[in-house]
Protein backbone atom coordinates (compact mmCIF):
# COMPACT_ATOMS: atom_id res chain seq x y z
CA UNK A 1 0.00 0.00 0.00
CA UNK A 2 2.82 2.27 0.90
CA UNK A 3 4.48 1.16 -2.31
CA UNK A 4 1.59 2.37 -4.45
CA UNK A 5 1.87 5.81 -2.99
CA UNK A 6 5.56 5.81 -3.80
CA UNK A 7 5.06 4.65 -7.31
CA UNK A 8 2.62 7.38 -8.28
CA UNK A 9 4.98 9.96 -6.89
CA UNK A 10 7.85 8.49 -8.84
CA UNK A 11 6.00 8.31 -12.11
CA UNK A 12 5.05 11.95 -11.76
CA UNK A 13 8.67 12.72 -11.33
CA UNK A 14 9.63 10.60 -14.29
CA UNK A 15 7.10 12.45 -16.36
CA UNK A 16 8.59 15.78 -15.41
CA UNK A 17 12.06 14.58 -16.19
CA UNK A 18 11.22 12.96 -19.44
CA UNK A 19 13.02 15.43 -21.68
CA UNK A 20 16.06 15.52 -19.44
CA UNK A 21 16.62 11.80 -18.93
CA UNK A 22 20.31 11.00 -18.62
CA UNK A 23 22.01 8.88 -21.25
CA UNK A 24 22.62 5.96 -18.87
CA UNK A 25 18.90 5.61 -18.25
CA UNK A 26 18.33 3.55 -21.40
CA UNK A 27 20.80 0.96 -20.17
CA UNK A 28 19.09 0.81 -16.80
CA UNK A 29 15.73 0.35 -18.39
CA UNK A 30 16.99 -2.44 -20.54
CA UNK A 31 18.72 -4.16 -17.65
CA UNK A 32 15.55 -3.95 -15.59
CA UNK A 33 13.44 -5.42 -18.38
CA UNK A 34 15.94 -8.23 -18.84
CA UNK A 35 16.05 -8.95 -15.13
CA UNK A 36 12.28 -9.12 -14.91
CA UNK A 37 12.04 -11.53 -17.79
CA UNK A 38 14.99 -13.58 -16.52
CA UNK A 39 13.35 -13.96 -13.11
CA UNK A 40 10.10 -14.93 -14.75
CA UNK A 41 11.79 -17.62 -16.82
CA UNK A 42 13.53 -19.02 -13.77
CA UNK A 43 10.23 -19.07 -11.91
CA UNK A 44 8.69 -21.01 -14.76
CA UNK A 45 11.57 -23.51 -14.50
CA UNK A 46 10.98 -23.98 -10.79
CA UNK A 47 7.31 -24.57 -11.35
CA UNK A 48 7.98 -27.01 -14.14
CA UNK A 49 10.59 -28.89 -12.11
CA UNK A 50 8.55 -29.19 -8.96
CA UNK A 51 5.22 -30.02 -10.58
CA UNK A 52 6.85 -32.78 -12.59
CA UNK A 53 8.83 -34.08 -9.60
CA UNK A 54 6.11 -34.21 -6.95
CA UNK A 55 4.15 -37.18 -8.33
CA UNK A 56 7.39 -39.00 -9.20
CA UNK A 57 8.77 -38.47 -5.69
CA UNK A 58 5.56 -39.70 -4.12
CA UNK A 59 5.79 -42.84 -6.17
CA UNK A 60 9.45 -43.41 -5.35
CA UNK A 61 8.70 -43.01 -1.66
CA UNK A 62 5.90 -45.52 -1.86
CA UNK A 63 8.05 -48.07 -3.65
CA UNK A 64 11.14 -47.57 -1.47
CA UNK A 65 11.40 -50.57 0.81
CA UNK A 66 14.44 -49.34 2.67
CA UNK A 67 13.71 -48.49 6.29
CA UNK A 68 15.45 -45.15 5.93
CA UNK A 69 13.94 -44.52 2.49
CA UNK A 70 17.38 -43.87 1.09
CA UNK A 71 16.51 -44.21 -2.57
CA UNK A 72 13.82 -41.61 -2.08
CA UNK A 73 16.25 -39.40 -0.17
CA UNK A 74 18.68 -39.44 -3.08
CA UNK A 75 16.07 -38.53 -5.68
CA UNK A 76 14.68 -35.86 -3.38
CA UNK A 77 18.09 -34.42 -2.78
CA UNK A 78 18.82 -34.38 -6.52
CA UNK A 79 15.61 -32.45 -7.28
CA UNK A 80 16.29 -30.12 -4.39
CA UNK A 81 19.79 -29.60 -5.77
CA UNK A 82 18.32 -28.39 -9.07
CA UNK A 83 16.00 -26.05 -7.24
CA UNK A 84 18.98 -24.65 -5.33
CA UNK A 85 20.85 -24.36 -8.59
CA UNK A 86 18.09 -22.13 -9.97
CA UNK A 87 18.17 -19.99 -6.83
CA UNK A 88 21.96 -19.66 -7.08
CA UNK A 89 21.66 -18.67 -10.69
CA UNK A 90 19.26 -15.87 -9.74
CA UNK A 91 21.53 -14.70 -6.91
CA UNK A 92 24.70 -14.72 -8.98
CA UNK A 93 23.01 -12.93 -11.85
CA UNK A 94 21.55 -10.33 -9.53
CA UNK A 95 24.98 -9.58 -8.13
CA UNK A 96 26.61 -9.60 -11.51
CA UNK A 97 24.07 -7.62 -13.49
CA UNK A 98 22.03 -5.51 -11.11
CA UNK A 99 24.29 -4.77 -8.15
CA UNK A 100 27.30 -4.06 -10.30
CA UNK A 101 25.56 -1.56 -12.57
CA UNK A 102 23.97 0.09 -9.55
CA UNK A 103 27.22 0.50 -7.63
CA UNK A 104 29.00 1.59 -10.74
CA UNK A 105 26.55 4.42 -11.42
CA UNK A 106 26.09 5.21 -7.75
CA UNK A 107 29.76 5.99 -7.47
CA UNK A 108 29.50 8.41 -10.37
CA UNK A 109 26.23 10.16 -9.59
CA UNK A 110 25.85 12.27 -6.51
CA UNK A 111 22.87 11.60 -4.27
CA UNK A 112 22.06 15.26 -4.71
CA UNK A 113 21.80 14.88 -8.47
CA UNK A 114 18.17 15.15 -9.58
CA UNK A 115 18.57 11.92 -11.53
CA UNK A 116 19.79 9.86 -8.62
CA UNK A 117 16.18 8.98 -7.90
CA UNK A 118 16.04 7.09 -11.17
CA UNK A 119 18.91 4.95 -10.03
CA UNK A 120 17.34 4.29 -6.63
CA UNK A 121 14.07 3.45 -8.28
CA UNK A 122 15.83 0.98 -10.59
CA UNK A 123 17.38 -0.75 -7.65
CA UNK A 124 14.17 -0.82 -5.67
CA UNK A 125 12.21 -2.31 -8.57
CA UNK A 126 14.87 -4.96 -9.25
CA UNK A 127 15.22 -5.89 -5.63
CA UNK A 128 11.44 -6.14 -5.23
CA UNK A 129 11.39 -8.45 -8.21
CA UNK A 130 14.17 -10.48 -6.62
CA UNK A 131 12.22 -10.76 -3.36
CA UNK A 132 9.22 -11.91 -5.29
CA UNK A 133 11.39 -14.60 -6.89
CA UNK A 134 12.63 -15.64 -3.46
CA UNK A 135 9.07 -15.98 -2.20
CA UNK A 136 8.31 -18.24 -5.14
CA UNK A 137 11.43 -20.27 -4.40
CA UNK A 138 10.29 -20.75 -0.80
CA UNK A 139 6.89 -21.78 -2.01
CA UNK A 140 8.28 -24.44 -4.38
CA UNK A 141 10.76 -25.68 -1.81
CA UNK A 142 7.89 -26.22 0.62
CA UNK A 143 5.88 -28.02 -2.03
CA UNK A 144 8.85 -30.30 -2.51
CA UNK A 145 9.27 -30.81 1.23
CA UNK A 146 5.69 -31.99 1.45
CA UNK A 147 6.60 -35.09 -0.57
CA UNK A 148 8.60 -36.30 2.45
CA UNK A 149 5.45 -36.52 4.52
CA UNK A 150 4.28 -40.05 5.11
CA UNK A 151 1.06 -41.05 6.70
CA UNK A 152 2.64 -42.47 9.82
CA UNK A 153 -0.71 -43.84 11.02
CA UNK A 154 -0.42 -46.47 8.30
CA UNK A 155 3.08 -47.46 9.39
CA UNK A 156 2.02 -47.46 13.02
CA UNK A 157 -0.94 -49.66 12.25
CA UNK A 158 1.36 -52.16 10.52
CA UNK A 159 3.53 -52.30 13.63
CA UNK A 160 0.47 -52.85 15.84
CA UNK A 161 -0.85 -55.56 13.53
CA UNK A 162 2.49 -57.30 13.47
CA UNK A 163 2.64 -57.22 17.25
CA UNK A 164 -0.83 -58.73 17.54
CA UNK A 165 0.21 -61.47 15.16
CA UNK A 166 3.40 -62.45 16.95
CA UNK A 167 2.74 -61.79 20.62
CA UNK A 168 1.63 -65.35 21.39
CA UNK A 169 3.71 -67.15 18.85
CA UNK A 170 6.92 -67.58 20.83
CA UNK A 171 7.88 -70.39 23.08
CA UNK A 172 10.82 -70.91 25.38
CA UNK A 173 13.87 -72.16 23.54
CA UNK A 174 14.68 -74.39 26.52
CA UNK A 175 11.41 -75.97 27.67
CA UNK A 176 8.99 -75.08 24.88
CA UNK A 177 6.60 -73.31 27.23
CA UNK A 178 4.62 -70.43 25.77
CA UNK A 179 6.08 -66.95 26.28
CA UNK A 180 3.80 -64.01 25.77
CA UNK A 181 5.47 -60.86 24.44
CA UNK A 182 3.92 -58.36 26.82
CA UNK A 183 4.48 -55.20 24.76
CA UNK A 184 6.22 -53.77 21.71
CA UNK A 185 9.88 -53.90 22.64
CA UNK A 186 11.97 -51.22 20.94
CA UNK A 187 15.32 -53.01 21.25
CA UNK A 188 16.58 -56.45 22.23
CA UNK A 189 15.73 -57.61 25.71
CA UNK A 190 15.88 -60.60 28.05
CA UNK A 191 12.59 -62.36 28.65
CA UNK A 192 12.35 -64.89 31.41
CA UNK A 193 10.40 -68.10 30.69
CA UNK A 194 7.50 -68.25 33.20
CA UNK A 195 7.91 -72.03 33.52
CA UNK A 196 11.62 -72.90 33.56
CA UNK A 197 13.01 -69.41 34.23
CA UNK A 198 15.39 -69.61 31.30
CA UNK A 199 16.56 -66.21 30.10
CA UNK A 200 15.52 -65.94 26.49
CA UNK A 201 16.79 -63.09 24.38
CA UNK A 202 14.05 -61.47 22.36
CA UNK A 203 15.01 -59.48 19.27
CA UNK A 204 12.20 -57.33 17.87
CA UNK A 205 11.59 -57.22 14.13
CA UNK A 206 13.07 -54.52 11.93
CA UNK A 207 9.59 -53.05 11.60
CA UNK A 208 8.98 -52.91 15.35
CA UNK A 209 12.33 -51.26 15.95
CA UNK A 210 11.27 -48.54 13.58
CA UNK A 211 8.60 -47.46 16.06
CA UNK A 212 11.27 -45.48 17.88
CA UNK A 213 12.01 -43.52 14.71
CA UNK A 214 8.44 -42.68 13.78
CA UNK A 215 6.98 -42.07 17.25
CA UNK A 216 7.67 -38.35 17.47
CA UNK A 217 6.56 -37.69 13.91
CA UNK A 218 3.33 -39.56 14.56
CA UNK A 219 2.71 -37.60 17.76
CA UNK A 220 3.29 -34.39 15.83
CA UNK A 221 0.92 -35.50 13.12
CA UNK A 222 -1.76 -36.16 15.70
CA UNK A 223 -1.35 -32.79 17.37
CA UNK A 224 -0.81 -30.74 14.22
CA UNK A 225 -4.10 -28.88 14.76
CA UNK A 226 -2.79 -27.52 18.06
CA UNK A 227 0.43 -26.41 16.45
CA UNK A 228 -1.56 -24.67 13.75
CA UNK A 229 -3.62 -22.86 16.37
CA UNK A 230 -0.39 -21.60 17.90
CA UNK A 231 1.02 -20.54 14.53
CA UNK A 232 -2.11 -18.61 13.62
CA UNK A 233 -2.01 -16.76 16.92
CA UNK A 234 1.69 -16.12 16.53
CA UNK A 235 1.20 -14.59 13.08
CA UNK A 236 -1.66 -12.43 14.32
CA UNK A 237 0.72 -10.12 16.14
CA UNK A 238 2.36 -8.98 12.87
CA UNK A 239 -0.94 -8.76 11.04
CA UNK A 240 -2.49 -6.60 13.74
CA UNK A 241 0.63 -4.49 13.87
CA UNK A 242 0.42 -3.78 10.15
CA UNK A 243 -3.31 -3.02 10.28
CA UNK A 244 -2.66 -0.56 13.06
CA UNK A 245 0.27 0.93 11.21
CA UNK A 246 -1.87 1.54 8.13
CA UNK A 247 -4.48 3.27 10.23
CA UNK A 248 -1.84 5.45 11.77
CA UNK A 249 -0.71 6.48 8.30
CA UNK A 250 -4.25 7.35 7.32
CA UNK A 251 -4.27 9.85 10.17
CA UNK A 252 -1.60 11.96 8.52
CA UNK A 253 -3.91 13.47 5.93
CA UNK A 254 -6.99 13.61 8.13
CA UNK A 255 -7.97 16.77 9.93
CA UNK A 256 -11.56 15.99 10.99
CA UNK A 257 -11.39 15.52 14.74
CA UNK A 258 -14.29 13.10 14.80
CA UNK A 259 -12.76 10.86 12.16
CA UNK A 260 -9.43 11.10 13.91
CA UNK A 261 -10.86 9.93 17.19
CA UNK A 262 -12.63 7.08 15.44
CA UNK A 263 -9.38 5.98 13.89
CA UNK A 264 -7.67 6.24 17.25
CA UNK A 265 -10.35 4.08 18.85
CA UNK A 266 -9.86 1.44 16.16
CA UNK A 267 -6.13 1.61 16.66
CA UNK A 268 -6.49 1.15 20.39
CA UNK A 269 -8.70 -1.83 19.81
CA UNK A 270 -6.15 -3.38 17.45
CA UNK A 271 -3.39 -2.77 19.95
CA UNK A 272 -5.41 -4.49 22.63
CA UNK A 273 -5.92 -7.48 20.37
CA UNK A 274 -2.25 -7.46 19.55
CA UNK A 275 -1.22 -7.48 23.20
CA UNK A 276 -3.60 -10.38 23.78
CA UNK A 277 -2.04 -12.32 20.90
CA UNK A 278 1.45 -11.67 22.29
CA UNK A 279 0.45 -13.18 25.61
CA UNK A 280 -1.72 -15.93 24.19
CA UNK A 281 0.65 -17.39 21.58
CA UNK A 282 3.16 -18.83 24.08
CA UNK A 283 0.26 -20.34 26.03
CA UNK A 284 -1.00 -22.07 22.92
CA UNK A 285 2.51 -23.32 22.27
CA UNK A 286 2.64 -24.82 25.76
CA UNK A 287 -0.70 -26.53 25.16
CA UNK A 288 0.59 -28.00 21.90
CA UNK A 289 3.87 -29.14 23.43
CA UNK A 290 2.23 -30.90 26.38
CA UNK A 291 -0.29 -32.63 24.12
CA UNK A 292 2.45 -33.69 21.69
CA UNK A 293 4.56 -35.23 24.46
CA UNK A 294 1.51 -36.96 25.96
CA UNK A 295 0.77 -38.48 22.60
CA UNK A 296 4.43 -39.48 22.16
CA UNK A 297 4.45 -41.15 25.57
CA UNK A 298 1.34 -43.07 24.63
CA UNK A 299 3.03 -44.42 21.50
CA UNK A 300 6.33 -45.35 23.18
CA UNK A 301 5.72 -45.58 26.95
CA UNK A 302 9.20 -47.08 27.35
CA UNK A 303 10.72 -43.74 26.39
CA UNK A 304 8.56 -41.70 28.73
CA UNK A 305 11.23 -41.04 31.34
CA UNK A 306 13.63 -39.70 28.73
CA UNK A 307 10.96 -37.75 26.89
CA UNK A 308 9.82 -36.01 30.06
CA UNK A 309 13.37 -34.78 30.63
CA UNK A 310 13.41 -33.44 27.11
CA UNK A 311 10.08 -31.76 27.75
CA UNK A 312 11.37 -30.10 30.89
CA UNK A 313 14.41 -28.81 29.00
CA UNK A 314 12.19 -27.45 26.29
CA UNK A 315 9.82 -25.53 28.53
CA UNK A 316 12.58 -24.01 30.66
CA UNK A 317 14.54 -22.83 27.66
Amino acid sequence: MFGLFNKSKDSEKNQANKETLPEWYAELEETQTRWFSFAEKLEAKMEELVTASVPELKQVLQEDEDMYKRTFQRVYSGVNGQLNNIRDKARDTYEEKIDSIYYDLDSQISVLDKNHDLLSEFRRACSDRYNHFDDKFDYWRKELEKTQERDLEIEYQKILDEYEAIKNKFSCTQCGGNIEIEKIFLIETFISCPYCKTQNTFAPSTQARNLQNIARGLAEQRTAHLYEAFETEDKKERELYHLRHELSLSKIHESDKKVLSEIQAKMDDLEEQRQFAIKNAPKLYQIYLRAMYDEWNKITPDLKEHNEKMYQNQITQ
Partner: protein
Amino acid sequence: MFKKLFGALTGDSKQENQNFEQTQTSNDSYDDNYANDYQEIEYDPETLHGTHYSVEDFDAEVAERAEAWIADERASGENLDEKDIQNIYFNYRRTVYTEWNNCDSDQMIRFEHANSLKYSGVQTSGFVKVDENNPFLEPVHGVDLRTYTAMCLKISAGVDYLEVCKAMGFEPVVWEELNTIWPQRMGEDTSFTVTTLFGQYYAENVTVPQLENLKAEISEEGAANLERIKTDRYFYEELAGARQAAYEYGLDGAQWILENFGINLADFQSVAMQWMTEQNQNWNSADITEFHDYQQAKQKEYAAKFAAEQGGNIADDVNF
Protein backbone atom coordinates in the same frame (compact mmCIF):
# COMPACT_ATOMS: atom_id res chain seq x y z
CA MET B 1 52.04 -16.84 38.79
CA PHE B 2 52.37 -13.85 36.52
CA LYS B 3 49.64 -12.08 38.40
CA LYS B 4 52.13 -10.42 40.73
CA LEU B 5 54.13 -8.99 37.88
CA PHE B 6 51.17 -6.92 36.83
CA GLY B 7 49.92 -6.35 40.36
CA ALA B 8 49.84 -2.61 39.84
CA LEU B 9 47.50 -3.01 36.96
CA THR B 10 44.92 -5.05 38.79
CA GLY B 11 45.22 -2.80 41.85
CA ASP B 12 43.16 -0.16 40.19
CA SER B 13 41.83 -1.71 37.10
CA LYS B 14 39.21 0.91 36.45
CA GLN B 15 41.73 3.66 36.21
CA GLU B 16 43.77 1.54 33.86
CA ASN B 17 40.82 0.88 31.63
CA GLN B 18 40.23 4.52 31.09
CA ASN B 19 43.85 4.93 30.17
CA PHE B 20 43.56 2.11 27.75
CA GLU B 21 40.58 3.69 26.07
CA GLN B 22 42.46 6.92 25.75
CA THR B 23 45.46 5.33 24.15
CA GLN B 24 43.21 3.53 21.76
CA THR B 25 41.45 6.62 20.57
CA SER B 26 44.12 9.28 20.75
CA ASN B 27 47.45 7.66 20.13
CA ASP B 28 48.71 8.20 16.62
CA SER B 29 51.07 5.26 16.66
CA TYR B 30 48.26 3.02 17.80
CA ASP B 31 49.20 0.24 15.41
CA ASP B 32 52.72 -0.02 16.73
CA ASN B 33 51.56 -0.01 20.30
CA TYR B 34 48.95 -2.56 19.49
CA ALA B 35 51.49 -4.95 18.08
CA ASN B 36 53.81 -4.48 21.03
CA ASP B 37 51.10 -4.84 23.62
CA TYR B 38 49.78 -7.87 21.88
CA GLN B 39 53.13 -9.57 22.25
CA GLU B 40 53.42 -8.68 25.89
CA ILE B 41 50.18 -10.23 27.13
CA GLU B 42 50.52 -13.66 28.65
CA TYR B 43 47.45 -15.84 28.63
CA ASP B 44 46.53 -18.53 31.08
CA PRO B 45 46.52 -21.67 28.92
CA GLU B 46 43.25 -22.91 30.43
CA THR B 47 41.06 -19.85 30.81
CA LEU B 48 42.81 -17.70 28.18
CA HIS B 49 42.48 -14.78 30.56
CA GLY B 50 45.44 -12.41 30.56
CA THR B 51 47.65 -13.29 33.50
CA HIS B 52 48.01 -9.64 34.51
CA TYR B 53 44.62 -9.63 36.26
CA SER B 54 42.59 -12.12 38.23
CA VAL B 55 39.48 -13.83 36.91
CA GLU B 56 37.54 -12.54 39.92
CA ASP B 57 38.45 -8.97 39.05
CA PHE B 58 37.42 -9.57 35.48
CA ASP B 59 34.05 -11.01 36.44
CA ALA B 60 33.50 -8.20 38.93
CA GLU B 61 34.27 -5.56 36.33
CA VAL B 62 31.87 -7.13 33.83
CA ALA B 63 29.16 -7.40 36.48
CA GLU B 64 29.61 -3.81 37.56
CA ARG B 65 29.30 -2.44 34.04
CA ALA B 66 26.46 -4.77 33.09
CA GLU B 67 24.45 -4.07 36.23
CA ALA B 68 24.87 -0.31 35.75
CA TRP B 69 23.53 -0.64 32.23
CA ILE B 70 20.66 -2.86 33.35
CA ALA B 71 19.70 -0.41 36.10
CA ASP B 72 19.80 2.38 33.55
CA GLU B 73 17.58 0.50 31.12
CA ARG B 74 15.09 -0.35 33.82
CA ALA B 75 15.02 3.24 35.05
CA SER B 76 14.00 4.32 31.57
CA GLY B 77 11.11 1.87 31.62
CA GLU B 78 12.63 -0.97 29.56
CA ASN B 79 11.37 -4.43 30.27
CA LEU B 80 14.40 -6.72 30.32
CA ASP B 81 14.03 -10.46 30.20
CA GLU B 82 16.56 -13.18 30.94
CA LYS B 83 17.84 -13.18 27.36
CA ASP B 84 18.42 -9.40 27.33
CA ILE B 85 20.40 -9.61 30.55
CA GLN B 86 22.49 -12.46 29.19
CA ASN B 87 23.21 -10.40 26.10
CA ILE B 88 24.26 -7.38 28.14
CA TYR B 89 26.69 -9.50 30.12
CA PHE B 90 27.90 -11.17 26.95
CA ASN B 91 28.69 -7.82 25.34
CA TYR B 92 30.44 -6.39 28.38
CA ARG B 93 32.52 -9.55 28.66
CA ARG B 94 33.71 -8.92 25.12
CA THR B 95 34.39 -5.25 25.79
CA VAL B 96 36.26 -5.78 29.05
CA TYR B 97 38.27 -8.67 27.66
CA THR B 98 39.31 -6.74 24.57
CA GLU B 99 40.16 -3.66 26.63
CA TRP B 100 42.11 -5.41 29.35
CA ASN B 101 44.10 -7.55 26.96
CA ASN B 102 44.18 -5.09 24.10
CA CYS B 103 43.57 -7.98 21.74
CA ASP B 104 41.95 -8.60 18.38
CA SER B 105 38.60 -10.27 17.88
CA ASP B 106 40.14 -13.67 17.10
CA GLN B 107 41.76 -13.81 20.51
CA MET B 108 38.47 -12.72 22.04
CA ILE B 109 36.62 -15.58 20.30
CA ARG B 110 39.25 -18.08 21.47
CA PHE B 111 38.61 -16.78 24.97
CA GLU B 112 34.86 -17.22 24.54
CA HIS B 113 35.33 -20.80 23.38
CA ALA B 114 37.54 -21.62 26.34
CA ASN B 115 34.93 -20.21 28.73
CA SER B 116 31.69 -21.08 26.99
CA LEU B 117 30.57 -23.50 29.68
CA LYS B 118 31.25 -21.07 32.50
CA TYR B 119 29.59 -18.07 30.89
CA SER B 120 26.89 -19.48 28.65
CA GLY B 121 26.37 -23.01 29.96
CA VAL B 122 27.33 -24.58 26.65
CA GLN B 123 30.45 -26.56 25.79
CA THR B 124 32.73 -25.89 22.84
CA SER B 125 34.59 -28.69 21.12
CA GLY B 126 38.25 -28.76 22.04
CA PHE B 127 37.71 -27.35 25.53
CA VAL B 128 35.71 -30.04 27.35
CA LYS B 129 37.19 -31.40 30.52
CA VAL B 130 35.88 -34.63 31.99
CA ASP B 131 34.22 -34.13 35.34
CA GLU B 132 34.05 -37.43 37.20
CA ASN B 133 30.95 -36.33 39.07
CA ASN B 134 28.86 -35.39 36.07
CA PRO B 135 25.87 -37.79 36.19
CA PHE B 136 25.54 -37.54 32.40
CA LEU B 137 29.00 -39.11 32.07
CA GLU B 138 28.37 -42.05 34.39
CA PRO B 139 29.06 -45.32 32.58
CA VAL B 140 26.05 -47.15 31.14
CA HIS B 141 26.20 -50.83 32.06
CA GLY B 142 29.84 -50.22 32.91
CA VAL B 143 30.67 -48.72 29.52
CA ASP B 144 31.94 -45.15 29.55
CA LEU B 145 31.48 -42.57 26.82
CA ARG B 146 35.01 -43.05 25.52
CA THR B 147 34.47 -46.77 24.98
CA TYR B 148 31.04 -46.17 23.49
CA THR B 149 32.58 -43.70 21.03
CA ALA B 150 35.29 -46.23 20.14
CA MET B 151 32.56 -48.76 19.33
CA CYS B 152 30.64 -46.23 17.23
CA LEU B 153 33.81 -45.42 15.29
CA LYS B 154 34.32 -49.07 14.39
CA ILE B 155 30.71 -49.54 13.36
CA SER B 156 30.52 -46.46 11.15
CA ALA B 157 33.85 -47.47 9.63
CA GLY B 158 32.00 -50.52 8.35
CA VAL B 159 32.78 -53.21 10.94
CA ASP B 160 29.71 -55.34 11.67
CA TYR B 161 28.26 -54.45 15.08
CA LEU B 162 28.14 -58.12 16.02
CA GLU B 163 31.92 -58.29 15.56
CA VAL B 164 32.33 -55.21 17.72
CA CYS B 165 30.17 -56.73 20.45
CA LYS B 166 32.11 -59.96 20.31
CA ALA B 167 35.42 -58.16 20.66
CA MET B 168 34.05 -56.22 23.61
CA GLY B 169 32.86 -59.47 25.17
CA PHE B 170 29.21 -58.65 25.48
CA GLU B 171 25.98 -59.56 23.82
CA PRO B 172 24.20 -57.31 21.28
CA VAL B 173 21.46 -56.80 23.87
CA VAL B 174 23.92 -54.70 25.89
CA TRP B 175 25.07 -52.74 22.84
CA GLU B 176 21.48 -51.87 21.99
CA GLU B 177 20.98 -50.49 25.46
CA LEU B 178 24.17 -48.41 25.17
CA ASN B 179 23.18 -47.19 21.77
CA THR B 180 19.87 -45.98 23.18
CA ILE B 181 20.97 -44.50 26.50
CA TRP B 182 24.04 -42.55 25.31
CA PRO B 183 22.15 -40.74 22.54
CA GLN B 184 19.36 -40.05 25.05
CA ARG B 185 21.85 -38.42 27.38
CA MET B 186 23.17 -36.30 24.54
CA GLY B 187 19.65 -35.00 24.07
CA GLU B 188 19.01 -34.42 27.77
CA ASP B 189 22.24 -32.60 28.57
CA THR B 190 21.60 -28.92 27.87
CA SER B 191 25.26 -28.03 28.34
CA PHE B 192 26.09 -30.34 25.41
CA THR B 193 28.94 -31.86 27.40
CA VAL B 194 28.08 -35.40 26.31
CA THR B 195 27.70 -34.47 22.66
CA THR B 196 30.81 -32.32 22.56
CA LEU B 197 32.92 -34.87 24.36
CA PHE B 198 31.65 -37.58 22.03
CA GLY B 199 32.79 -35.36 19.16
CA GLN B 200 36.14 -34.77 20.77
CA TYR B 201 36.71 -38.51 21.22
CA TYR B 202 35.52 -39.02 17.67
CA ALA B 203 38.08 -36.49 16.46
CA GLU B 204 40.78 -38.27 18.42
CA ASN B 205 39.69 -41.52 16.78
CA VAL B 206 39.79 -43.13 20.21
CA THR B 207 40.09 -46.84 20.64
CA VAL B 208 40.14 -49.33 23.49
CA PRO B 209 42.42 -52.39 23.79
CA GLN B 210 39.56 -54.81 23.06
CA LEU B 211 38.91 -53.17 19.69
CA GLU B 212 42.45 -52.57 18.53
CA ASN B 213 42.56 -55.65 16.32
CA LEU B 214 39.30 -54.84 14.58
CA LYS B 215 40.12 -52.92 11.45
CA ALA B 216 37.78 -51.79 8.75
CA GLU B 217 39.05 -52.67 5.32
CA ILE B 218 40.88 -49.81 3.72
CA SER B 219 42.58 -49.77 0.35
CA GLU B 220 46.11 -48.51 -0.11
CA GLU B 221 44.80 -45.51 -1.96
CA GLY B 222 42.20 -44.93 0.75
CA ALA B 223 44.86 -44.97 3.45
CA ALA B 224 46.94 -42.46 1.51
CA ASN B 225 43.94 -40.19 0.98
CA LEU B 226 42.99 -40.45 4.63
CA GLU B 227 46.48 -39.44 5.67
CA ARG B 228 46.30 -36.53 3.27
CA ILE B 229 42.97 -35.11 4.52
CA LYS B 230 44.41 -35.25 8.03
CA THR B 231 47.44 -33.17 7.15
CA ASP B 232 46.34 -31.11 4.16
CA ARG B 233 43.45 -28.88 5.11
CA TYR B 234 42.90 -27.84 1.50
CA PHE B 235 42.48 -31.44 0.41
CA TYR B 236 40.03 -31.99 3.24
CA GLU B 237 38.04 -28.92 2.17
CA GLU B 238 38.05 -30.17 -1.41
CA LEU B 239 36.53 -33.50 -0.43
CA ALA B 240 34.04 -31.82 1.89
CA GLY B 241 32.94 -29.61 -1.02
CA ALA B 242 32.80 -32.59 -3.37
CA ARG B 243 30.71 -34.54 -0.91
CA GLN B 244 28.23 -31.68 -0.61
CA ALA B 245 28.04 -31.36 -4.39
CA ALA B 246 27.41 -35.11 -4.66
CA TYR B 247 24.33 -34.84 -2.43
CA GLU B 248 22.99 -31.99 -4.56
CA TYR B 249 23.19 -34.26 -7.59
CA GLY B 250 21.34 -37.20 -6.08
CA LEU B 251 24.36 -39.17 -4.92
CA ASP B 252 24.94 -40.41 -1.39
CA GLY B 253 27.98 -38.30 -0.51
CA ALA B 254 29.33 -40.76 2.07
CA GLN B 255 29.18 -43.62 -0.39
CA TRP B 256 30.63 -41.47 -3.15
CA ILE B 257 33.66 -40.56 -1.04
CA LEU B 258 34.14 -44.23 -0.15
CA GLU B 259 33.96 -45.32 -3.78
CA ASN B 260 36.15 -42.57 -5.20
CA PHE B 261 38.63 -41.87 -2.43
CA GLY B 262 38.43 -45.01 -0.31
CA ILE B 263 37.68 -43.11 2.90
CA ASN B 264 34.83 -44.39 5.05
CA LEU B 265 32.32 -42.19 6.83
CA ALA B 266 33.79 -42.69 10.31
CA ASP B 267 37.26 -41.64 9.24
CA PHE B 268 35.90 -38.71 7.27
CA GLN B 269 33.77 -37.43 10.14
CA SER B 270 36.62 -37.94 12.53
CA VAL B 271 38.90 -35.76 10.43
CA ALA B 272 36.11 -33.18 10.08
CA MET B 273 35.89 -33.04 13.87
CA GLN B 274 39.66 -32.72 14.13
CA TRP B 275 39.70 -29.67 11.89
CA MET B 276 36.74 -28.17 13.68
CA THR B 277 38.36 -28.63 17.08
CA GLU B 278 41.60 -27.21 15.80
CA GLN B 279 39.71 -24.25 14.40
CA ASN B 280 37.96 -23.61 17.72
CA GLN B 281 41.21 -23.72 19.62
CA ASN B 282 43.21 -21.52 17.28
CA TRP B 283 40.44 -19.25 16.09
CA ASN B 284 41.63 -17.21 13.16
CA SER B 285 38.97 -15.51 11.09
CA ALA B 286 41.18 -14.93 8.06
CA ASP B 287 41.95 -18.67 7.80
CA ILE B 288 38.34 -19.58 8.34
CA THR B 289 37.22 -17.35 5.49
CA GLU B 290 39.99 -18.70 3.29
CA PHE B 291 39.02 -22.34 3.87
CA HIS B 292 35.33 -21.61 3.57
CA ASP B 293 35.82 -19.90 0.21
CA TYR B 294 38.07 -22.69 -0.96
CA GLN B 295 35.45 -25.30 -0.09
CA GLN B 296 32.77 -23.30 -1.91
CA ALA B 297 34.92 -23.01 -5.01
CA LYS B 298 35.64 -26.75 -4.97
CA GLN B 299 31.98 -27.55 -4.44
CA LYS B 300 31.20 -25.50 -7.55
CA GLU B 301 33.86 -27.32 -9.51
CA TYR B 302 32.52 -30.75 -8.58
CA ALA B 303 28.94 -29.58 -9.13
CA ALA B 304 29.87 -28.66 -12.69
CA LYS B 305 31.31 -32.12 -13.16
CA PHE B 306 28.21 -33.85 -11.79
CA ALA B 307 26.00 -31.56 -13.85
CA ALA B 308 27.85 -32.52 -17.02
CA GLU B 309 27.37 -36.20 -16.16
CA GLN B 310 23.60 -35.78 -15.92
CA GLY B 311 23.40 -33.77 -19.13
CA GLY B 312 23.38 -30.28 -17.62
CA ASN B 313 21.21 -28.40 -15.17
CA ILE B 314 17.51 -27.79 -15.67
CA ALA B 315 17.88 -24.04 -16.04
CA ASP B 316 20.96 -24.02 -18.27
CA ASP B 317 18.99 -22.62 -21.19
CA VAL B 318 17.75 -19.61 -19.25
CA ASN B 319 19.93 -16.62 -20.04
CA PHE B 320 19.93 -13.05 -18.88
